[in-house]
């Protein structure tokens, strides 16, 4: 009886119990072959099956180079430390470049917020920049998703030092959470890539789950993804998503060899906890370290751009992205210079130049530098494009000439062109109303003129 219920359960769990007939089942054998193999076969190096419940006093990390097992008050935690020496090359940069990152107003600009509180808590001035990246058992979120590897990286005089906290077993999660808290202390500033929406909420949930409130939730936080999006979205360096692996290649010139694919990472951890060799985790640890190093290098590079761009706009598409960053931070003059440079750069695409001219025009208008703004709008028109993008310029110029320039004819010319390009009733009516008013003003203006001349 028991064995029959077990076999029924197996049928159901494998999805063969529900309905598909033998003929049907042949057609659609479950697909995810390779990953499945990797995940669910706990074998030792000779390929012999391992008892997954085998106790591993060393946490099973014997095969992991550089790993040590810390026994804490809260349980065991595996720590892997690694140093990238200053003269080590990471793409076009040297590791020592990471040391140039410092907490100043340019970093605030990248963060889009003040990283150093005006009135630091007593004895807790955030001064240490800590790069942070998680590896998790999935992407779904929820109570059943674990962060099995928490990697932190920090610049030290000896070089870029990464410290990775690895979960040797499920029961050891509290130890990892405490260890991470202890590492961060009360003076860390967090730097992540997409940490605001992923890494930090994950740690928050794990902390709530284990009742170990997480320091990462409360420290100042620079999420480089948002800065990177502003900087590189419009340029060739960043595709639209601005993935870290993509930027490290295009911006930093890093090429990873044999990097573990993201989809494999959970499977490797599951194989390890099922009794597999810790060696399967080595590529994951390497992947995580490289992510940390790239994050630091990218931050250094971005901060350098911000510093240099303050005085001289860079060439190329970066100028536009940089302008957007300056604008968000309220650095008006550098923003204007950057936009201007980008709009004038004949090597760039028309779309980018027009976007830059438009940003420039809007910024100048907000600064009440109307004449210059009108010039920029004029430039938008010259660059041409779809009616939607030009309509805004037509409207702005019509307003400018009507109310500030007093050139009613010129205003009418733009309003007419705008009305022709308008899409939808609302827009068309706006222009028509403007035109009617302009006609009225013009009609009033013309007969009056001769009188004055007389």
């Amino acid at each position: 009886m028991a064995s029959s219920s077990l076999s029924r359960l197996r049928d159901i769990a494998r999805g063969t119990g529900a309905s598909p007939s033998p003929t049907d089942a042949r057609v659609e054998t479950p697909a995810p072959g390779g990953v499945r193999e990797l995940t669910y076969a706990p074998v030792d190096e000779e390929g012999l099956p391992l008892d997954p419940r085998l106790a591993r006093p060393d946490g099973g990390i014997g095969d992991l180079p550089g790993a040590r097992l810390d026994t804490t008050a809260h349980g065991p935690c595996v720590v892997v430390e690694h140093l990238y020496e200053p003269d080590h090359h990471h793409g076009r940069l040297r590791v020592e470049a990471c040391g140039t990152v410092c907490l100043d107003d340019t970093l605030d600009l990248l963060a889009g917020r003040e990283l150093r509180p005006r009135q630091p808590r007593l004895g807790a001035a955030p001064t240490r920049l800590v790069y942070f990246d998680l590896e998790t058992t999935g992407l779904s979120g929820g109570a059943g998703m674990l962060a099995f590897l928490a990697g932190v990286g920090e610049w030290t005089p000896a070089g870029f030092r990464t410290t990775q906290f690895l979960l040797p077993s499920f029961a050891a999660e509290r130890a990892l959470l405490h260890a991470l808290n202890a590492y961060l202390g009360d003076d860390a500033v967090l730097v992540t890539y997409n940490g605001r929406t992923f890494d930090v909420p994950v740690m928050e949930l794990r902390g709530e789950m284990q009742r170990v409130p997480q320091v990462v939730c409360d420290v100042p936080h620079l999420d480089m993804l948002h800065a990177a999006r502003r900087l590189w979205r419009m340029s060739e360096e960043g595709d639209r998503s601005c993935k870290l692996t993509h930027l490290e290649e295009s911006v930093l010139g890093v090429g990873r060899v044999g990097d573990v694919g993201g989809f494999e990472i959970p499977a490797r951890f599951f194989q390890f906890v099922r009794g597999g060799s810790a060696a399967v985790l080595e590529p994951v640890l390497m992947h995580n370290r490289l992510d940390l190093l790239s994050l630091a290098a990218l931050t250094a590079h971005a901060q350098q751009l911000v510093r240099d761009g303050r005085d001289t706009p860079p060439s190329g598409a970066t100028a536009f992205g940089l302008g957007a960053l300056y604008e968000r931070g309220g650095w008006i003059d550098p923003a204007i210079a950057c936009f201007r440079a980008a709009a004038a750069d004949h090597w760039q695409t028309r779309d980018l130049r027009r976007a830059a001219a438009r940003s420039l025009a809007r910024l100048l208008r907000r600064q009440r530098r109307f004449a210059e703004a009108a010039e920029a709008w004029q430039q938008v028109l010259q660059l041409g494009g779809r009616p939607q993008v030009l309509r805004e310029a037509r409207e702005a110029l019509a307003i400018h000439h009507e109310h500030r320039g007093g050139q009613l004819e010129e205003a009418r010319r733009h309003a007419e062109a705008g009305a022709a390009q308008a899409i939808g009733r609302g827009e068309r009516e706006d222009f028509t109303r403007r035109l009617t008013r302009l006609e009225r003003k013009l009609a009033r203006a013309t007969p009056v003129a001769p009188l004055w001349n007389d």
Partner: protein
Amino acid sequence: MSGTVARLSGNKDQALQDALGHLAPDSRTAATLPGGDGAPGTHVEVSGDKVVTAVRHIPAQAARHAPWPADVEARLVEALTARGIEQPYSHQAEAMTHALAGRHVVVVTPTASGKTLCYNGAVLSTVLREPGARALYLFPTKALAQDQLAELQGLAQIVGAAAQREIGVFTYDGDTPADARRAIRARANVVLSNPDMLHAGVLPHHPRWARLFENLRYIVIDELHAYRGVFGSHLANVLRRLQRICRHYGSDPTFICTSATIANPQALAEQLTEQPFSLVAESGAPRGEKFFVLLNPPVVNQALGIRRSYLSEARRVALEFLRRNLQLIVFAQSRLATEILTTYLKDAFQGPPGATDAVRGYRGGYLPLRRREIERGLREGDVRAVVSTNALELGIDIGALDVCVMAGYPGTIASTWQRAGRAGRRSGRSAAVLVASSAPLDQFIVRHPTYFFDASPEHALINPENLHVLLSHVKCAAFELPFQDGERFGRTPVSTEEVLQVLGEEGFVHAADGQWNWTHESYPADAISLRAITSDNFVIVDTTEGSRVIGETDYTSALSTLHEKAIYILEGALFQVERLDIEGRKAYVRSVECDYYTDAITYTKVNVLEEAETSLGEVGLRATDVGDSSVDGTLVPLPNRSARSHGDVHVVSRVVGFKKIRFYTNENVGSGDLDLPEQQMHTTSYWLTVPRAVLLEVPWAPDDRRDGVSGMAHAMRSIAQLLLMCDRRDLGVSIDTGTGEAAVGGRPPAPATGDADAHVFLYDNYPGGIGFSAPLFRMHDALLTQTRQLIESCPCEVGCPSCVGPMGDIGPRAKRVALDLLARLQAASGSTGDEVPF
């Protein structure tokens, strides 16, 4: 002043009486209508094939009040008094007393009896006393939660103001914006949600809800009766998970459930929650007198058993009331029927000149704003008639109307009373009229008013131990919290250890350090729908313009509903399947206009795997032996034995073709052959054995015997559906004529030669079963008796879709042979009368 009101209501009563008198074309019945002075609880049964088949008079009942229970907060009592509620009804007081004392309670409440106070009273009292206390309300649909929100928020605001603090009341469902969710988690004292959201959106993220779970004092389950069959089986497991999480956070909430009238509210509540319940069944709410009329459209073709369209008949009935200025609600069975009836009534009744729309339609799919407008129009009286699907059956507030007309039997007794309750003020007369369609159940009900009026309503049946369902929820539970070694999932008799072991083999969990951890990348709740057994779905792609997904169907029913040339119906729109991609789990459909739907012909073979119980109904005294010699005669098996059983079966089915059936008339207008792969299913079944001896005894040819068994099975399925409170597609039927071949939806190919016993299987049409078989086994006698009544009382000559099945399918002598067989089986089975199934 009061005199005017009395006269007005008197006029209304008179108008109602008047309209009722005009319901039958032959005015004779008008005279037989019992007046207000008629004996209470009686009904006049009009025998034969009359249009009005019965009128039941339900007397008025005065309100029974009770003092406020001592534990109800004074500030709440004050606020309620200010709102005109000076004293609770007896059932409200009783329910609050139980709940405040921490006893789980289920309240059976007729429509409009003030069920919300039963739980709001207890919850708000507790929240006032303990500011941190939390409550979770579960409604079967989002719309119901929204409807409750306004009322509860209003009350909470008044009470909160008196207590000088804020009582947070929020809905939490799929529509809640992401930024509002954090605030709700932190501030809500009362969260209104639904089981699907709890399953996929709350429980898997329980650490975020720690405040709620730590302080959870009450779980309110409204409309408990909605949780039967698949949905109920899932909910029982969701509640196991919920209670597991509560234990983790150290809370032990009290359940407060409300249910419409069903036969087993307490048992259902106890099965769903695995907790002992107190039952409050006596309503203290006042009730006006009511007339309940059963109406059967006249027959227009005696031979084919075709009646006048029930929609036209419903229109006629509705107009009788509308013309006399009575406000009414008309329930239709489908969205399409709703739209048709709305059009009919709008055409026929414009209302007073200058008035706004006097007739409105109402169904799912209307925008919320429009729905609110119609609901308000009903309460204020501008809308004189609303035609609705079951969307208005549950607790949405539309005030009390004068008349309810049901176009078609709603499918269950409980739901019929629930809908009838939509008409009826607390004083004055009201009426409910049921217009039968030609479906077998409808016909049975109108021809057996006694059964309808006097039988207890249905049992709501669930099977939380369905292995498919159980396995799914153990996955979710393991995701939420690791299972400890030796931990049992709820009180399931299925070994949790074994389930986890199998999940471990499949890589979902891993045992180490005394616990089972989730070791999979997936988010299991996403793949599990509470409304279906398996997550293996076919999507339906409309290729009329471009391609877009318009629906899903579970694997089990896909082949029989989505085969090529099948008509797929969605919200009244018709689509024809052009291609079925079995591997890709897709059906490509194109919009068509036609006047038929399709019904698959499926050959089914049932193998019995394990008999759980068998009862030989044949044991009795052999009368001839006893008569002369000894009075203490021994028990000797009677010669013609009928046996009934239930147990596990293996069902192999193959869709071999389909029929085209015309709408309304149910004529067979064509057919086609299909070649599709076999499907297999392990499920539970009830089966009746027609012994070889009985088959041989019936004086008909083998082909006719087979037809008789098929016809009997057709009728048995209808009656089983009636007894089980289930949907037609919840039950499968298979006939085995003794030669190994079997079929559904058509005749088995083999004649019943009488060489072996024949069997009729009624199986749960879901992998693993949803708990129908054992109850059906216990209702065996009622099943046979009522099947016989259904066939006997059908006015058709040789069989029709309302009894043994459409004549073209079933053969010319099916009706007579079926009756003959039933008579012999019943004589053999010996015992009489209805058995209580539990």
